[in-house]
């Protein structure tokens, strides 16, 4: 048992820390917080291009496709520093999702066509998996793709498609066969959002932001050349991707930062001469979360160590998703308690000076959107079913 970092690891950590401190500047951060979709997108692209220039845009890609080739330890250090610095995660759909699928299962032509634009953030992707009737039971999806010469003709609807309104491309699971098991007739298509017949309808969400959409496909023609791998084998590729999505969702370092932010905010809430942070009940609320995070941080390390030594993560990786998202929600909920009644304030209602408060609206936004973390990426209930079956053998 030894978890100490080598001098090289420590030097790398300092480099990452210094880079974030310098490059993730306040001006950029204010644009990233914009409610104006194009301003937000532009800021994200700018930030991701800075990472690209630095060579750090794809820590988990192989070197030959433009990844960093970092060890598991360095990836951990990088993620931890990112979380602790409050630096936003990259938009996952290209870099953390379809990118992996394309370099693993794609043709040379597909790799050449798509990977550079993903790395440079020149093309935005969105994920077209869920449908109105197919959420947890994803394999029951019904959007149809019928072969017609060199094209597929795609008809149906996807839902909950994050950032579809900002995306250039969508990767979709579509049904190409209704024979046999439902998993066996699914194909994986890359679809240009500008194709005739694609229509994006916004869905307003409880966080007062617009990120979700419904995407309709009305006889959309998609070249067969945009199919990943074999026809009817799309489920295999999609499953490989889901595993990637799951571990990326835990965000332990982000929760640690959130909790330390809460301690600061609570310390500043002085009431009757005493700070909220001195209240024993509140202290227990904070430490309940801190103790779980201390454990989860080591769970994450155990997963990484297993992967580094060539093993496959088992029980711990499902645990990471469930516990990670539960703790994110616990942190968000605690920030709401600190904000007290100001949690109800809507964005831009009054200035912070007029209001006498600065973080209530933001705390609520994170809390409300955060409710989704236990729903997407395979709901926590579905995760528990997986653990029960695959790990406990029930």
């Amino acid at each position, binding site marked *: 048992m030894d978890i100490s970092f080598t001098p090289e690891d420590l030097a790398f950590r300092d480099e990452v820390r210094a880079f974030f401190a310098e490059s993730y500047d306040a001006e950029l951060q204010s644009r990233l917080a914009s409610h104006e979709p194009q301003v937000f997108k532009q800021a994200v692209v700018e930030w991701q291009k800075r990472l690209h220039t630095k060579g750090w845009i794809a820590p988990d890609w192989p070197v030959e496709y433009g990844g960093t080739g970092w060890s598991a330890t360095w990836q951990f250090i990088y993620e931890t520093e990112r979380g602790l610095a409050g630096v936003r995660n990259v938009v996952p759909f290209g870099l953390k999702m379809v990118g992996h699928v394309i370099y693993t299962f794609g043709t040379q032509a597909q790799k050449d066509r798509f990977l550079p634009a993903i790395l440079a953030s020149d093309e935005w992707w969105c994920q077209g998996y869920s449908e109105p009737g197919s959420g947890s039971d994803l394999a029951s999806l019904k959007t149809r793709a019928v072969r017609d010469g060199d094209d597929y003709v795609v008809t149906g609807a996807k839902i909950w498609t994050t950032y579809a309104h900002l995306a250039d491309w969508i990767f979709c699971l579509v049904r190409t066969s209704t024979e046999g098991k439902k998993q066996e007739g699914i194909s994986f298509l890359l679809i240009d959002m500008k194709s005739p017949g694609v229509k994006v309808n916004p869905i307003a969400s409880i966080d007062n932001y617009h990120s979700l959409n419904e995407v309709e496909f009305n006889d959309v023609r998609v070249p067969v050349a945009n199919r990943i791998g074999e026809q009817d084998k799309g489920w295999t590729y999609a499953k490989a991707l889901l595993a990637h999505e799951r571990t990326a969702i835990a965000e332990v370092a982000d929760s640690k930062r959130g909790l330390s932010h809460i301690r600061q905010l609570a310390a500043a809430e002085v009431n009757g001469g005493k700070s909220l942070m001195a209240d024993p009940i509140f202290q227990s609320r904070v430490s309940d979360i801190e103790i779980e995070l201390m454990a989860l941080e080591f769970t994450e390390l155990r997963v990484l160590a297993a992967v580094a030594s060539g093993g496959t993560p088992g029980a711990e990786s499902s645990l990471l998703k469930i516990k990670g998202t539960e703790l994110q929600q616990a942190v968000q909920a605690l920030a709401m308690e600190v904000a007290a009644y100001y949690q109800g304030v809507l964005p831009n209602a009054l200035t912070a000076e007029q209001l006498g408060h600065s973080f209530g609206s933001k705390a609520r936004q994170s809390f409300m959107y955060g*409710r989704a973390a236990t729903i997407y990426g395979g709901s926590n209930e579905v995760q528990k079913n997986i653990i029960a079956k695959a790990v406990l053998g029930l």
Partner: protein
Amino acid sequence: MNFEFTQEQVMLRDSVARFIQDDYSFDERQRIAQSDTAMSAEHWSTFAELGWLSIPFAEEHGGFGGSAVDVMLVMEQLGRGLVLEPYLATTLLFGGLLQNGGSAALQAEYIPQIIEGKCQGAFAYLERQSRYELADVLTSASAVDGGYRLDGEKVVVFNGANADHVIVSARTSGQQSEESGISLFLLSMNSPGVEKLGYRMMDGQLVANLVMKSVVVPAANRVGELDQGFALMQAVVMQATMAVAAEALGIMEQLNAKTLEYTRTRKQFGVTIGSFQALQHRMVDTFMACEQTRSLLYRAVCALTDGNEDPAATVHALKVMVDRAGKLVFGEAIQLHGGMGITDELDIGHYAKRLMMINTTFGNGDFHQARFNALRYNTYNE
């Protein structure tokens, strides 16, 4: 021993329920929430006509002389309908303070107007620094010729943007957090020196911050004794806490009913999701949380009306339970609706937001738990 309501009480409850059923659909509620005033004058008149605005007031002022049970029944239904009209602010807080501590002249002037639906009121007690401490008051009231001069700021005043009149807590003597030295004053929102900044909250209500600069109030507008305002506001807030707990119960019932219905119809893996035992147990938990809240609400109402038990401890306990049970219920409601639960179009998120707002009204769960501990276990600290 009996938990039955009188025939009159059943009629009252049913009249509110019928109004919501017939005239206060979720679409109508959302239309009102987005309107300039975030309330409907027309519905408010209906409340007056149906006698709901007269419930807590004495018969001598034209009131119904109702009890805590009547208030509870009305509030539970208003919760079910997610009603925005300011029954709490105008009738229970502004009206409650007048009924419990106003001079005969103030009562005679304002209570009939409230009952007729002609006066919108508010109670301004929160300040930037006060959080949930009612006694933490920096707004000052100094004696001037014939009255008092008020200076200070109040925040998140419910109904503050629509109110014609407001009762303000202000310090007439003593230190920042002292219970003694607080007095209450009734003033017109149009008084010179009152600046009002209105804004909307997540639950659709319109509130305001009030900045008072050298606002002069006649001595006759003091509500209750000089320096003794704390006990009056504490008593009224205790009753109002019971009332919002009843509203919360109505919301929880709706969330549970809607979630149950959804799990009976939503199909995944070829079956309704309600057939999964993992979800069944969760819905049993939310059902039990709701029933436990109802029991404690009844207990608090009994303590407030018959005094067999310390109402303060019971109301603290109730508010703790509303916080814990409420969070469980809205959390599960969103989770079990999956992606649908995240949409603004569905009513689930709006019920959740009102519950969240109730949790921060008159103290959150932790605040009341600390008070409960102090009342019950203080001897161990000595």
